[in-house]
């Protein structure tokens, strides 16, 4: 059983007259990437702010590495690093000078460590430029450097891919996975994009309208979204003929849409079934262009369904 390093229990928070967070509870473990998923206005940022002590809480407990934020703030903060909302640093200082600021506020950080994190986030060559000259993505990277500077046990990043280019997103994913899986850090990433979560998270906690809907491993999430079946889309020379060619395979269901064939395959032995479908279409001398798993789209749909927000009003 991995160590629980972030524990949130029955967190409630009211801002102004609005009750924003309702009994939020979840645990995050050392060595995992935990996705914190929810639509706009769900309360992700608010929860994160509570976790790092930026805002007070009405009730509940939050402990980081065994220390409660509201009781031992300094002890808890020594073990957490993070970015909340936009990565805003001192614009009149360089990235390195900014990191030196944070180094003086944390314990035991050497010059070498600063060089190291600058290299990790890929800013080593531009470290002595003022932040005011940085692009949004570069600022995001500097923010990540700030967050991992003191090798925290828990790393909390609020929408860290904001502003990053595709290569940057991939790099960040790799950095975070490395930190979690190789160095045992508990990485918590918030996002409103399911697709992003899939690519890096081990577990996903879903929040909507200030309530936790559940915490799932990635597999659980996929299974739940597909139920018993996986769905494939087949593009070939003649969909009608292909449908006939595979009609004898048991358990599958095929429908014709446009010129394509959509097939639902039972999860049990899906791989064998699909290779059989492949073979039979090819044997029927129908040109086969591609076979696509439709789970991605379905997962996104499942998320929208779960959070009850189909592009509707923000709750």
């Amino acid at each position, binding site marked *: 059983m991995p160590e629980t390093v972030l524990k949130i229990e029955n967190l409630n928070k009211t801002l102004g007259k609005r009750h924003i967070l309702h009994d939020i509870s979840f645990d995050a473990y050392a060595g995992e990437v935990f996705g914190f998923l929810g639509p706009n206005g769900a309360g992700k940022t608010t929860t994160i702010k509570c976790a*790092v002590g930026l805002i*007070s809480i009405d009730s509940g407990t939050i402990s980081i590495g065994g220390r409660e934020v509201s009781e031992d703030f*300094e002890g808890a903060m020594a073990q957490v690093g993070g970015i909340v909302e936009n990565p*805003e640093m001192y614009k*009149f200082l360089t990235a390195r000078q900014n990191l030196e*600021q944070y180094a*003086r*506020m944390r314990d035991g950080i050497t010059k070498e460590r600063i060089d190291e994190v600058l290299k990790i986030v890929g800013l080593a060559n531009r470290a002595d430029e003022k932040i005011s000259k940085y692009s949004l993505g570069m600022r995001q990277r500097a923010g990540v450097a700030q967050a991992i500077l003191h090798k925290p046990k828990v790393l909390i990043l609020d929408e860290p891919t904001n502003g990053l280019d595709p290569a940057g997103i991939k790099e960040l994913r790799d950095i975070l996975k490395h930190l979690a899986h190789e160095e045992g850090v508990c990485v918590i990433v918030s996002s409103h994009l399911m697709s992003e979560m899939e690519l890096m998270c081990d577990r996903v906690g879903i929040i909507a309208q200030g309530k936790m809907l559940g915490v799932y491993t990635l597999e659980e999430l996929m299974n739940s979204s597909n139920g018993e079946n996986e769905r494939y889309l087949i593009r070939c020379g003649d969909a009608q003929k292909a449908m006939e060619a595979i009609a004898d395979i048991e358990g599958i269901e095929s429908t014709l849409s446009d010129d394509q064939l959509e097939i639902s395959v039972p999860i049990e032995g899906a791989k064998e079934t699909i290779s059989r479908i492949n073979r039979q279409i090819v044997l029927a001398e129908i040109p086969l262009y591609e076979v696509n798993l439709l789970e991605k789209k379905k997962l996104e749909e499942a998320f929208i369904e779960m959070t009850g927000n189909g592009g509707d009003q923000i709750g």
Partner: protein
Amino acid sequence: MGKLTALVKNEYIKQLKKRSTIIILILTAIVSVGFTGIVKLSTLEMSDPELDDHTPDTSYSVEIEDARRNGDDTSLEYYTFLSEQGISTADWRYDPAVTALGEGSFDSVAGYVQKNSSEDISGRFRDFVINKDWKGYYGFIKDKLPEEARWAVEFRLENDIAPDENMYSEDADWRNVQLDQYLQYALKKSKVSSEQMKTNYDDAMKTARYRLEHDIAFNVAGTSMTDMERVMYEDEPMPTSNKFTMWTAFTTSPSVVSFVGLLIIIIAGSIVASEFSNGTIKFLLINPRSRGKILISKYITVITAGLVMIVLCFIVSLLTAGLMFGFGEAGATYVKTTAGETTAVPGILYIFGQYMLKGVYVLVMATFSFALSSLVKSSSLAIGLGIFAMTMGESVVMMLKQAFGIDAVRYTIFANYDIQSIASGQTIFAGQTIGFALIIIAIHMVVFLLTAWDGFTRRDV
């Protein structure tokens, strides 16, 4: 402790990297230089008193000519005597001589002696004058002076201090001015009835006596522009030097500190609020340092920055004053007697003390703006409110007091924060004491700081 030092270091780095801070420091220096420059210019406007009557007239040719033409024998005899003896108005013999000739004034020393003695002493005076016998003269008048005045005569005789034949000459003995003034004040004191005036004369005598006994040729007290003007145009006892020195500018320079008060509002008003307006507050508070420590480090930064600026003003003013007027009297002492108590400190130290007293005002303004800064999220709002309070507060209090006679405004901070002025008696509130002012200041400071603390440590970011 180490943590706090590191936080303060952070604040200083941030401040010094901001262009506004550098501009503020440069402005502070420029204003100090400019202030001294203005004093220098105005001394050029005022004629240097030392230059008047440098070689006083001893021929009396005009007066003798007039007397001849008018057939005025008394005047003729009078001026001829002065002319023959070569006695100018700047000569110690002038007083006994004119007294002997029957023109003595009751206000002069010789006149006083003559009017208070039963016998006719004109002959004795005439002899002393002709023989330039100052020892004889002072020995003679000593017992005839009021009790209190005698000390000056004794001191002169004991120390063998010859009076000047030309008190305006370069090699005139500074002690003569002090001894003469001592006598003058003693005589005046014996004549006035107001207790206040008696104390004033007594204080002036004590100061003169202290300087003579401790051989202090130059007194820093009374050298400021306002003091010099007062001495020139009003008949008030004020020990002063009659020449312009670096002290003319330097003793007036503590008022520059008010400007530091204005500038510190900019630093104090933005030090917390700017973290909010720039969004950097989140990265600042996500560190293992409590909000209390962060706030304290910011306050320490504001206060020490104010101190640095005051010291900068002090040093720049000292150097500019020295360069413009010469460093000749830099080592002079400040001697002043108030209500019978004589204090003497090196002039530089005294002025530094004045800067520090003015610094209380800077402290109050800084703390006020700091509290505002911790309450609002916009630095321009905090700075604006701070400057508004600073410029309007005092005027409003003055107006309420003077135009509407509302005395209760004496409890406001604006009536009390300038303790340097209160210490030197420049206040419109009767009986305002330093102690009272300090209590009012302390209460306000506590309120400001608690407000800042509460606002900053509990607020949602």
